[in-house]
């Protein structure tokens, strides 16, 4: 379900829960079942962690096909609210344990990066370039 976050000073920002995103992406939650109500406002689809750090803003969802520990640390440093591993790449248990440690919900889907991104975009979620909300946008 897509919602709008109301803010008197800014345009309405579409947001979706992790649970809705899991449904749209036919994704399996691997960690963070207790955080599935977390609301996502913006998405970055990227395999280059340097670019996640350079171009993301805040409180986003990271879609990636990389499955190493640096993905989790990058997401934590960049202030991501969740991660979706795409292309059927399942991270190892130590990677998932690290995500739990940082309170990061993790989803897993067999969809490609393109397909997953397209499904989220078609339901109203946007990337950082067109994101209108957030304190630092």
């Amino acid at each position, binding site marked *: 379900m897509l919602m709008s976050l109301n803010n008197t000073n800014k345009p309405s920002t579409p947001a979706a829960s992790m649970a809705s995103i899991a449904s749209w992406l036919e994704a399996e939650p691997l960690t963070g079942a207790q955080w599935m109500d977390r609301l996502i406002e913006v998405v970055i689809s990227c395999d280059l962690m340097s670019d996640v750090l350079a171009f993301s803003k805040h409180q986003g969802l990271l879609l990636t096909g990389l499955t190493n520990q640096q993905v989790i640390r990058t997401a934590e440093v*960049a202030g991501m609210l969740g991660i979706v591993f795409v292309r059927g790449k399942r991270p190892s248990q130590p990677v998932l344990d690290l995500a739990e440690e940082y309170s990061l919900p993790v989803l897993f889907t067999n969809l490609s990066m393109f397909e997953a991104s397209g499904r989220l975009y078609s339901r109203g979620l946007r990337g950082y370039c067109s994101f209108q909300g957030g304190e630092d946008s």
Partner: protein
Amino acid sequence: MTSKETPDEFVRQFEIVGDDFSSAGAVSIAVKRLVKEVGFSPELVRRVAIAAFEAEMNVVMYGGGGFLELHITADRVRLVIKDQGPGISDLDLAMQEGWSTATTEMREMGFGAGMGLPNMKKNSDRMQVLTDQGRGTTVLLEMDAC
């Protein structure tokens, strides 16, 4: 981790292990938590965390190990990152987005895109790089609280 703080300044020093990708980033996340606990704005916390992370990754990937020193005062966060690597041969080139000497292993980890130093500059209010061929590199970063 060591401490040498004064009443007006909180200081912590963290060791960074060279070529250890499994723990790379852990220092920056510890720094982020400390800065957050002080009560600085989420935006400042985020800028410090990203700059620290890029610096830490450089020390791991290129610097052969070193340390990160965190200084917190009421109005500023200061990071001093020192490595024992070969130094940067052309600093102007290294400051350009996209220029990189990364290995295949680094790129497979999602790094080495030539965004490290530019990203540190972008997320700091003042940046100074002191580098000497064969004697390592020191990066000084300052972020103002307001």
